[in-house]
């Protein structure tokens, strides 16, 4: 039986008012501006844009402020906002080969044209707390060098020239869109990549890590990792040509995996691919590893029954908004549900005890009747 329950409005209003006060914190401490979050917590902003599936640094910063730094809550806010926007169309596929690279490293080729550009990285820092940051102070200006004029080529091009890596088939097929049609299985690589790029960083990281530890034979080299800005081109119907409608920062990771060959393919390297909004390299590398693991069927590899090879498992559990929605709903009132559970347990116990000790059932029954009932 479903019993409609009303009440709690005043408590809810007061809880939200207190939330606003707690969000602000100590009034003697200056309030954080959205611009400060956007500029100084940029990697958090990137994560919210990537998993929120909407590139807008100001909105992501606002969401982080509103969510008090709870990243999944912030992502939830962005996802909800995203659904209110009319969609004007889609972009041309971005040309990551033309990226203005802030960072570009390869773990496979030391002397690749374009070189190893470290960029603003945490790598090689000592991971010692820097107490200078606790005090205000000027930041010394970064050094400058002489950049190369031509675009930086993709590393996999070099392997491609020798035919040593599986070619990426050219296609202009319209990709499916998870945000428009529900995911159906078996899916395909474009849909998997969309799910992974908006998937939870922690989940995708753990799945990728599991492949490294041996759950799916998938030893990956980072062929290339690049971070920088690319232009976004979109066809404008009223003009009849495409213009750049903006510029976004992306992280791209291409992994190179050994492949023993199959009945139809010679031994060669295969690819895993990661592409994520913003400077988000842990996510991009993770995405590439999981992408590669999920390709086992098309490559004719063995089913190792590894979690990261299980498309259904990965795709249905990677979305942290779906996950948290289902998880957190169990804290909301289930009084009536639980009432029936309680009745059932009492009944089962009565029956079990009656069966075990035929003469003693009555007194036990009386005791349970005096226990407090679950309130509405």
């Amino acid at each position, binding site marked *: 039986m479903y019993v409609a329950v009303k009440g709690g409005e005043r408590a809810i209003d007061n809880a939200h008012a207190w939330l606003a006060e707690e969000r602000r914190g100590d009034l003697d401490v200056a309030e954080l501006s959205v611009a400060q979050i956007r500029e100084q917590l940029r990697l958090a902003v990137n994560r919210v844009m990537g998993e929120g599936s*909407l*590139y*807008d640094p100001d909105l992501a910063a606002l969401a982080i402020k509103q969510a008090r730094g709870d990243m999944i809550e912030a992502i939830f806010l962005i996802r909800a906002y995203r659904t209110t*926007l009319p969609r004007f169309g889609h972009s041309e596929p971005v040309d990551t080969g033309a990226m203005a690279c802030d960072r570009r490293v390869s773990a496979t080729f030391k002397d690749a044209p374009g070189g190893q550009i470290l960029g603003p990285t945490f790598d090689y820092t000592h991971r010692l707390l820097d107490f200078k940051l606790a005090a205000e102070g000027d930041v010394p200006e970064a050094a400058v060098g002489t950049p190369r004029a031509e675009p930086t080529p993709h590393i996999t091009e070099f392997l491609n020239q020798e035919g040593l890596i599986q070619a990426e088939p050219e296609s202009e097929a319209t*990709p499916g869109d998870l945000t428009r049609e529900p995911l159906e299985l078996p899916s395909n690589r474009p849909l998997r990549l*969309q799910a992974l790029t908006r998937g939870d960083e922690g989940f995708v990281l753990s799945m990728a890590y599991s492949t490294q530890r041996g759950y799916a034979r998938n030893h990956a080299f980072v062929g290339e990792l690049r971070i920088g800005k690319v232009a*976004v081109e979109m066809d404008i119907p009223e003009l009849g040509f495409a*213009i750049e409608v903006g510029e976004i920062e992306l992280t791209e990771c291409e992994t190179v995996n050994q492949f023993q060959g199959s009945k139809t393919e010679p031994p060669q390297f295969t690819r895993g691919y990661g592409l994520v909004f913003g400077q988000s390299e842990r996510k991009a590398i993770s995405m590439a590893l999981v992408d590669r693991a999920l390709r086992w069927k098309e490559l004719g590899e063995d089913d190792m029954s590894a979690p990261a090879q299980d498309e259904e498992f990965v795709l249905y559990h990677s979305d942290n908004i779906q996950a948290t929605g289902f998880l957190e709903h169990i804290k909301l009132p289930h009084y009536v549900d639980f009432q029936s559970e309680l009745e059932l347990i009492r009944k089962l116990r009565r029956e079990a005890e009656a069966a075990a000790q035929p003469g003693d059932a009555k007194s036990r029954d009386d005791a349970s009747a005096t226990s407090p009932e679950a309130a509405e």
Partner: protein
Amino acid sequence: MTVELDRRGWMSLLAKAPMAELAPLWRALNMSPEFQWLRAPEVGATMVRGRMGGTGAPFNLGEMTITRCSLQLDDGVVGHGYVQGRDKEKARMAALVDALMQGEMADRVCRDVLVPLAGAFRDAKAERAAKAAATKVDFFTMVRGEDK
């Protein structure tokens, strides 16, 4: 500094320009042409696509916010604004610049708005590229014993 810009070029420049740069240049132009909205500014999104492996089949990466509008000057010229983000005022300025660039004011608008914007865009790009270049690794090989 010279800038060769076709319509695609100036619309792309306007789309990417930070409002903090565009607004003062537009205001300094001191033009307020009469116009009618064909499409009032509206905020929306476009689905950004990538390619598998950087070169293969397209997939949907995620959306980005854009704002668009269309207007018609009193002389009949139509201007379109398509700009990144959610700033309706920026879309209006972009559409006005687009319209004026098709008329006799084009040279002045180009000189006073587009050329400075293009310069700022190029400078910002060059500055990042120079900082990136300074982080390029120069490998050197240690002299090993067997070479002696």
